Structure formats: structure tokens, C-alpha cells
């Protein structure tokens, strides 16, 4: 049978079954709340994507166990985040075809940049997990309405830089950077240098290396670093590259001779084995440190659940994802109250989300008026004094976005230069 014809008939049939012609049906007030989730399933960030999904799942299960949102249970519709073009299509599907009430997810920068305008165009509420850069936010989304973002990418670099300045001022003369070759890497390195300058550290950058994300062989990079003999190596590696690089650097004797600053490698902390990761390294865990002694009961419960189920300790992406779920719930409830008890529209939920403080796994969090998140960041100096075969940090230091994220309306470097040190 002619396949073309068969396909067209299918679409024709499906089309005529749709309610109305060209008019989207009104939101169902009963039935489950559809939450679309975009998850990375392939590539270097796949593990991070999976973390996010786990955090989402846990959050949704808890909400549903408590009766859902205003009595409606949350139903997850999971789609894959891949290239920007394909992810835009999945996003449209979630919004137009699945009629999702809210869409969460989004980790990689390119995807984040592409989805922002699409969310606005479709008037679809989007709570992203990650995926921000300074430039992206400024250029494409000066006044986002429907898109809500995570914290700026540079927060980790800034916090790590402040800790560096405090601990090692006067002890280092030269710095080298090895960062993934894309905007995240570049922005973080630039932020680091800016903070070093602000604190009058007197350091000179002697090398900056840019391996492509996904590189597994750093022998040439390690050799180059050995040549320059920097006092400190700065890296915002956040995936497997962190542990692979450390392993190879250790094998080449670069460690523990050099001081290290790894702003985000806490995300893959279980791979940072004591065998090749030194003590006294500044290590950042983004917004969640699994062993925070001051952790809330909520976090402790999540960590325990995660370890029992997956035999792994969770990382920050679960925290970001969890927050989107509970923030949405709280905002819907807040907006419903203002709307007289009816299920609110997206336009009513938006002002409810702004400024609303909700407890996430790692502490209280909120969205600013400009739709950027405010949260807590955790970093510290590594230690071997623990029961694992990988490093942890002690003491763990917390800084809020008030200290490490630029306020809205100000340029990043202007803000840094305006600090009082």
C-alpha cells in the first residue's frame, strides 16, 4: 500500500478528531497536572540529566503522596534534551501536543538559549534546571516572562575565587587554567581572573587550555601544564573530565605539587578518588553538598533515599530539579488563593513564582523578579578524613547568591569591580 497515503490518512484522521479547528481547548480543571521534563539522555551530561530526573521524580512522588497540587496529581511527561533544534521540537510537542501545564528541565547552554524565546512565544511556563550564562541572559532574554532560570554560571567560579583569595593570598604567583572549551568554561575563567584582580592577588595567568568537552585524553595538556609550572590550576570541569584529568595529572606528578581549584567537580564527587585527588584542594559542589552537617531533615532524607536506591550519593542537579517541582506547587497554591480558589493560569502563576521562597533540598531558595534563582552554594577544602574512597570537604562553607551572583541590572565585571574587599 502506498505509504505516503497511509501517513496522510493517519494525520487527517487525527486532525479531525481534535476538538475544534485551530482553537486550543481550555485547560482541564480536573485530571492530572502535566509536567513536561526535558532530560539529557546521551553525551557527557547524561549523568547530570539523570540526576535531575531522580530529583524530579522524588519531588513529584512526595507531592502526589501528599495529595498532589490542589488535589490534582502530577503526571510527568519525559522527553529527551539533545541538540537545540531537536529539543525545541520536543518542547513544542510538550506545550502544543501534550498540553503540559509546566515544563521543567534544560541543562546545556545552547539548549537554554534556544528554549528561552520559544517558551515566551508559546506562552509556556518553563522552569529550567541549569543552562545559564551571563551573555545568554543579557542578549536574548532581557525581560523573560514565562522562562525561569537557574543561577548564573559564574557563581561557582566567583565563590571559589573568593575562597582562593582568602586562603592563598601571597602564596601564589602564577595561575593556569584548564577548562572545557565552551561558554561555561570561558565565562568561569574570566570571572576567576577578574576576582583575582579585584583582590590584588598579583597573579599572572601563564597558561589557559581549552580541551573540548568529552575529551578523555589529557596527556598533552598535562605535559603543557608541567612546562609552565603554575602555582595554581583553576578548572571548572564538571563531568568525567574532572576525574580523568586529575588521574592523569597525578600520574604525571603535577599533583600534589600544584594548588588546585575545581569549582564544580563536586557534581561528580564520587569519581574523585583519594588515590589521585589531593587534600587541600578547593572543591565546589554547586548548590548541594551531600554530607553537609547543617543539612536539613529534608536533604538528609533525600540523600538517604538516593543512596539506598541507586547506591550513589546525589549531586546538585537533583536539588535544582526538586526545587522546580516544589516551587511550581507553592506558586500554584499561592496564585489559586489570589484567584479565589480556581486553578490559576500560567499568567497568574508567574507573579506568584517571583520572590516566592520555598524549601529545596539544600535550603531555602527563590526566584528573583528577573526570574533568576537565588540559592546557596557549597564549597570547601578537600580532606581524606572520611569513610569513603573519594574526597570530601571539611569544613564546608556556604555562600548565598547575594554574595556570589550579580544582582539584576548590573554587568558582571562592574559588579565585581565595585566590591569592597
Amino acid at each position, binding site marked *: 500500500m502506498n505509504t505516503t497515503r497511509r501517513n496522510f490518512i493517519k494525520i487527517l484522521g487525527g486532525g479531525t478528531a481534535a476538538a475544534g479547528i485551530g482553537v486550543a481547548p481550555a485547560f482541564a480543571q480536573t485530571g492530572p497536572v502535566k509536567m513536561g521534563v526535558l532530560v539529557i539522555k546521551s553525551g557527557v551530561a547524561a549523568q547530570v540529566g539523570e540526576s535531575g530526573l531522580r530529583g524530579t521524580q522524588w519531588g513529584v512522588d512526595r507531592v502526589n503522596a501528599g495529595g498532589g497540587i490542589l488535589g490534582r496529581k502530577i503526571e510527568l511527561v519525559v522527553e529527551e534534551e539533545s541538540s537545540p533544534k531537536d529539543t525545541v521540537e520536543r518542547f513544542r510537542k510538550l506545550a502544543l501536543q501534550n498540553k503540559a501545564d509546566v515544563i521543567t528541565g534544560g541543562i546545556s547552554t545552547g539548549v537554554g538559549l534556544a528554549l528561552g524565546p520559544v517558551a515566551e512565544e508559546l506562552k509556556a511556563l518553563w522552569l529550567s534546571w541549569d543552562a545559564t550564562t551571563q551573555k545568554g541572559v543579557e542578549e536574548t532574554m532581557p525581560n523573560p516572562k514565562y522562562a525561569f532560570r537557574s543561577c548564573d554560571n559564574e557563581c561557582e567560579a566567583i565563590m571559589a575565587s573568593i575562597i582562593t583569595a582568602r586562603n592563598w593570598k601571597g602564596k601564589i604567583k602564577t595561575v593556569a587554567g584548564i577548562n572545557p572549551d565552551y561558554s561555561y568554561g570561558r565565562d568561569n575563567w574570566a570571572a576567576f581572573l577578574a576576582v583575582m584582580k579585584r583582590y590584588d592577588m598579583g597573579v599572572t595567568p601563564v597558561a589557559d587550555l581549552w580541551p573540548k568537552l568529552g575529551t578523555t585524553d589529557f596527556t598533552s595538556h598535562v605535559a603543557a601544564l*608541567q612546562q609552565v609550572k603554575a602555582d595554581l590550576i583553576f578548572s571548572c570541569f564538571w563531568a568525567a573530565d574532572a576525574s580523568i584529568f586529575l588521574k592523569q595529572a597525578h600520574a*604525571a606528578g603535577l599533583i600534589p605539587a600544584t594548588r588546585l581549584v575545581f569549582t564544580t567537580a563536586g557534581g561528580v564527587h564520587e569519581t574523585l578518588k583519594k588515590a589521585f585527588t589531593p587534600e587541600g584542594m578547593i572543591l565546589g559542589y554547586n548548590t548541594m553538598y551531600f554530607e553537609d552537617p547543617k543539612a536539613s531533615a529534608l536533604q538528609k532524607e533525600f540523600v538517604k533515599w538516593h543512596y539506598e536506591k541507586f547506591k550513589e550519593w546525589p549531586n546538585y542537579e537533583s536539588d535544582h530539579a526538586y526545587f522546580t517541582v516544589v516551587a511550581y506547587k507553592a506558586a500554584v497554591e499561592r496564585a489559586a488563593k489570589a484567584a479565589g480558589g480556581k486553578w490559576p493560569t500560567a499568567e497568574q502563576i508567574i507573579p506568584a513564582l517571583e520572590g516566592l521562597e520555598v524549601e529545596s533540598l539544600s535550603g531555602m531558595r527563590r526566584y528573583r523578579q528577573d526570574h533568576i534563582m537565588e540559592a546557596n552554594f557549597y564549597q570547601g577544602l578537600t580532606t581524606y578524613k572520611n569513610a569513603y574512597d573519594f574526597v570530601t570537604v571539611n569544613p564546608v562553607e556556604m555562600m548565598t547568591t547575594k554574595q556570589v551572583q550579580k544582582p539584576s541590572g548590573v554587568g558582571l565585571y562592574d559588579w565585581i569591580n565595585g566590591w569592597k574587599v
Partner: protein
Amino acid sequence: MFHAATLFLVAAGLQLVFGVQKIVNLACGSFYALGAYFGISLVTWALQAGLPPPLFLPVLLVAGLLLAAIGPLVERLLRLIYDRDESFQMLLTFALVLMFEDVIRRLWGTSPYQLGQIYLVYGQLRVAGLTIPVYNLIVIAAGLAIAVLMGWLLARTRFGRIVRASAENRAMSEALGVDMSRLYTRVFTLGTALGTVGGALVVPATAASIEIAVELIVEAFAVVVIGGLGSMRGAFVGALIVGIMRAVAIATYPEVEMLAIYLVVVAVLVLRPAGLFAKAAA
């Protein structure tokens, strides 16, 4: 240099299969990845079963060779379309790339796998102000050894002579009584083994991740174009050039790391279109 060794192994596999069977195997990167993952799994299992650490290297080799068993299976599949245009065969290998990617994901998950520090069990050496793990040197030596072995195999043994003769003139060889299908199976398996062993050998010092399959193809192609399609020597020299270029670029002008290799490719194409050591194009 280390990188060059791995490139050589993969490119050699590509070259061998192409030289004889005129198939460009896009899945050679996938074989590499499978060898890497399987190598890790086997070594991890063996260590847990009580294997003394220094013996992990032979286990790796075994893993690579064992996995080469998929070679004949894949070759069988390709055999179905031998008489078609070569482009079809390339396409079929592309289909395999897609399928293998998900197979790896299903069997080993999405996170990259590593073997920890075990490769340091062979110690480290200080050479010219740099500290190099002995293991890396072993891999480079292995690459060289395999290159020499391949050279000997092709030049001195009967098998090698048949391979070369069939590469030059298939019809003639067949007329002279060579069992082509058996030869093809052997050659393809050998090519596969080069890839899987390469992957297994390299992984202790690096890591296994799903992308390596797709990324490696690009560099392997660059090596093959530079060295000339179908030539083992070309694979060797090509891999050396690419490896050195990369190391030099990283040390001096990191921005052009990726581009440098392609620029060399284009330069070779313009100056010596058939590559540096090409055989007669079929």
C-alpha cells in the same frame, strides 16, 4: 604520543578493512568504545575475583580479543550487501554506529566508566623533565609492536600475501583459488580486533564514554586521509602526524587544536591528493 598510538590502532583497523574489502567502516569507533567498556568490566570483575593488579594488562588484551568476536557477526551482515555500491556499505556501518551507541547505553549506562589508578602499578618514569606513567609507554610500545607485526604479517606471511594480492586484484585472486569469503571474514575480524584491543588498552589511562565512538571517527578519518587510504604505513605516519600536531597545538596555540588537524588534511589533499602513502585508488 599516547594519543597517536590509539589513533594508529583504530586507523589501522580502518585501513585494513578498506584495503581489502573496500568498506569504510564507520563503526570502527564503536568497536573501540565497546573494547574500552568491556575491558573495564572484565578487569573489574577479575580484580574482584582476586587477580593481582599487575596482571590487568593481559586481561585487557583478552577482553579486546574476546570482543573481536563480534567482527565475524558484523561481517556477515555486511556480506549481504557486498555487491552493492560502496556507499551502501558505509551507510550500513553508520546504522551500526547508531545501534551500538544504544547497546552501550543499555549495557553500561550513561556515565563514563573508569578504572581508577590501577595502571600506575607499573610505575612512572621521568623523561626530559616530564613524569610519564610507564603504562603509557607500554601502550605506545604496543602500538609500535602491532605496527611492526602488521607490517610483517602483510609482507612475509602467506596470509599477508593473499591479503595484498586480493587488495590489488580481487578477481584474479579468486580465479587463483582464494576463498574470498573466508579471507574477508578474517580480515574484518582482524580489523575489528585492532579497534577493540585499542580501546581496551587505552582505557585504563583515560575513560570510556559513549561519545568516543563518534568523536574518534573524525580523527581516524583525518589520519586515513593524510596517510592515504588503504596503506598501513600511511596509518602509522598519519597517526604520528596527527598526534604530534595535536600535542604541539595544545602546547603552543591551544585555540587551533581542532582546526590544525583539518588544515593538515586539506593541505595534504591539495598537495598530494591521494595521501602520503596511497595505494592505487580502486
